[in-house]
């Protein structure tokens, strides 16, 4: 039996209590949202929310987390009987893998649960984390930098997956362009599906263009297949697929199925983009 007054809201008036409860509600909801937005597992989001609710003095609360949103009921109990329920729902529109955000959210939640930070501090930290990154002056430089990193990463992946040095260079160049395109289009709020389709097409275009040039120069060391496979690595939802199966295994069936649908659609889009360009190339007399 849990009585709220045992927790740190001793001696406060009912107005203060209401304010406190709504702060806990926001902290719990925000942390769940942040975990899911930054690529965390569904069970982790629910666990984080439950811990926060428990530490805040609402252990009877219930949460349902899904890749597309979080539903949270904060249940206020008094002398063993449930008196009041505060409910919040928030939609998740954008999901990407952002391990720094995940780590920060996790540590903010942990500090709150262990009592190192109070509710006001934690709420402030989470609000800062949930702000969208500034897209102004340093934005262009940052997308150039991430393009360069993506290109280098593709270079090594292509070599690892038995591509030649030339394959790796072409794949890296294509990956650089796709990464720039991605950061350009993310500002236009374009669907992930379109981005995958376009990305696949651009990489395939790079590959066939390089192949044509190499053949003109009488050079046959280029392998179109390796270039494409290397170039699309950052677009491929392999990690997402593993996570989808993990979600299903832990019993988060709705999340697992939803993530699976996303994985299949992304893969179809990439293959469609690549397939369209390759088909066109073959029609124009090229050899793959």
């Amino acid at each position, binding site marked *: 039996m849990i009585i709220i007054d045992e927790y740190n809201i001793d001696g406060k008036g009912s107005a203060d209590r209401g304010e406190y409860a709504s702060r806990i509600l926001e902290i719990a909801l925000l942390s769940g949202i942040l975990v899911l937005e930054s*690529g*965390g*597992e569904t069970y*982790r989001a629910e666990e984080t929310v439950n811990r926060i609710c428990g530490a805040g003095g609402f252990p009877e609360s219930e949460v349902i987390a899904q890749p597309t949103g979080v539903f949270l009921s904060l249940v206020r109990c008094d002398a063993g009987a449930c008196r009041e329920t505060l409910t919040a729902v928030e939609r998740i529109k954008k999901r990407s*893998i*952002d*391990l*720094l*955000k*995940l*780590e920060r959210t*996790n*540590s903010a939640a942990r500090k709150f649960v262990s009592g190192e930070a109070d509710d006001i501090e934690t709420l402030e930290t989470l609000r800062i984390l949930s702000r969208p990154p500034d897209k102004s002056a340093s934005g262009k430089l940052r997308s150039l930098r*991430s393009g360069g*990193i*993506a290109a*280098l*990463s593709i270079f*090594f*992946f292509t*070599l*690892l*997956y038995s591509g030649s040095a030339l394959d790796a260079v072409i794949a890296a160049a294509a990956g650089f362009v796709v990464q720039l395109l991605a950061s350009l289009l993310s500002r236009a709020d374009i669907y992930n599906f379109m981005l995958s389709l376009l990305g696949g097409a651009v990489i395939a275009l790079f590959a066939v263009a390089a192949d044509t040039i190499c053949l003109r120069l009488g050079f046959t060391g280029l392998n179109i297949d390796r270039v494409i*496979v290397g170039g*699309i*690595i*950052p677009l*491929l*939802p*392999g*990690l997402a*697929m*593993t*996570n*989808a*199966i*993990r979600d299903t*295994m*832990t019993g988060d069936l709705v999340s697992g199925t939803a993530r699976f649908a996303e*994985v299949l659609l992304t*893969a*179809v889009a*990439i*293959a*469609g983009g*690549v*397939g369209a360009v390759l*088909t066109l190339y073959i029609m124009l007399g090229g050899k793959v």
Partner: protein
Amino acid sequence: MMDASELALLILRDMVFCFAAAALYSTLMRSPVSSIPPSAVTAAVGYTIYDVVYRNFGQELLGYFLGTLLIAAAAEILARIMRMPATVFIFPGIIPLVPGIGLYQTMLCLVRSEYEQAASSGTKTLFIAGIMALAIAAVNTTARIIKGILKKSKPLKSK
């Protein structure tokens, strides 16, 4: 057949490629800077385990399972040491093993209406992803059980 030293050199080369690729890729996933070197090392070692098992014993799925098992175990240990969620180390670690290319090839076969090939590569991809998820889940469950035992065995401190 290659002789042993040649094979060792090849494995070492792949480890270097894998380390570099995983380190750079984890930068793209915005990993905390201090977590990048250990997770890239785990990625390289995990991939090597897969590679060795696959090459020497011809067991591809077993290779994926053992490689992922090691990565997940290392991630749980690193998570305790560095006080970060295990996910921060698991994601970059399994990136070289994750069957993204198989997924792409399956869909490409479908786009080209080569259904038989699509079915075979699709099944394989699904099994690989499934066995990797299984390895991660197994390590995660074990870690929880160990954590529970450690908590219980400690005498309750003054509360």
